[in-house]
């Protein structure tokens, strides 16, 4: 056991052969797998980070577009309301003018009718007076 002999060289050769074989068939492939795994994890993390960045950007863009749409819709609403109020005013004034005109016309017509009736009654006054007198005398 304590004898240092020629078998040392055989064992050293065995060790070196084992080293080269294990390096070729085990360590190199395993290190490659470790690297691939690291790259995959790193790639996935990068992809997740990219997606997160894109999500943040999308949220910012969505909020901006929402704010723009709100401003735009408010402006349109205000314009339409102003237009509506203008239209309402116009309709009111035109209806008011029309009503005044109809009223004036009706008044004139009533006045003419009254005058006509008055004249017709005036023409019949003498006839009605004679009738009254004759009836009184007869009595």
């Amino acid at each position, binding site marked *: *056991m*304590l*004898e*240092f*002999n020629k*078998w*040392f060289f*055989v*064992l*050293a050769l*065995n*060790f*070196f*052969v*084992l*080293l080269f*074989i*294990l*390096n070729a*068939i*085990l*360590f*190199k*492939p*395993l*290190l490659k*797998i*470790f690297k*691939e*795994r690291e790259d*995959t994890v790193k790639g996935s993390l990068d992809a997740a980070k990219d997606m997160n960045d894109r999500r943040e950007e999308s949220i910012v863009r969505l909020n901006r577009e929402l704010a723009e749409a709100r401003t735009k819709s408010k402006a349109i609403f205000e314009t339409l309301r102003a237009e509506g109020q203008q239209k309402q005013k116009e309709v009111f004034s035109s209806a008011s003018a029309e009503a005044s005109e109809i009223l004036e016309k009706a008044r004139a017509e009533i006045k003419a009718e009254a005058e006509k009736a008055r004249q017709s009654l005036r023409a019949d006054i003498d006839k009605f007076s004679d009738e009254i007198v004759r009836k009184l005398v007869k009595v």
Partner: protein
Amino acid sequence: MVEEKLLMDIIVSPEVVPHVVSYALLASLILIGTALAVKSSLRLVPVGVQNVMETFVEAILKLVEDNIGHHWGKQLFPFICTIFVFILLCNFMGLIPGFACPTANINTNAAMAVPVFLLTHYYGVRAHGVKYLYHFLGPMRSIAALPLMILMFFTEFIGHLARPLTLTVRLFGNMTAKHIILFVLAIISPWVVPTAILALGVLVSIVQAFVFTLLATLYLAGAVEEAH
């Protein structure tokens, strides 16, 4: 000492190839077989034996990269990881009846400790060039400190020479002691005590494999880091 009768004697005679060598070869074959099984079903999401292998490999990769750094660590990782899985399997083989423990022999341990020693200095020179010598001269480098630098050089030199020796003997001592204790207790009081020692043997096997690996890593890390 009388050679025990073991399973591998069926395939190869211990007179021709000693147990230590035949079981070291068997350990290599088991590791290669496992590696092939893992490679044939390699997936991004691990299952089965790939999980077990990945646990060992990732733990050693982390140990190496934390201590040596990413650049040199990547180059030295296969060497250190092979040491760990090989020693661990060899240590565990010593716990199975009918199997021998190749690490309970200094030739097996030296076959790993000497390459650790050689690679330490090879990578030291590769990383620092001539300045690697600063590692041997201690923290003070001036003319006034020359005697101290010479003293430090010899101290470091002896320290570096002792490293493969201590790596070899530490693993050998622990594995042999465990083996002998199990053997003796099995004769004196079968079942209960040897079972407890066997559980301790599992722990020692893992710890010693890790200690060898950790020290090899630290020696290599010390060689490639900047001299203080």
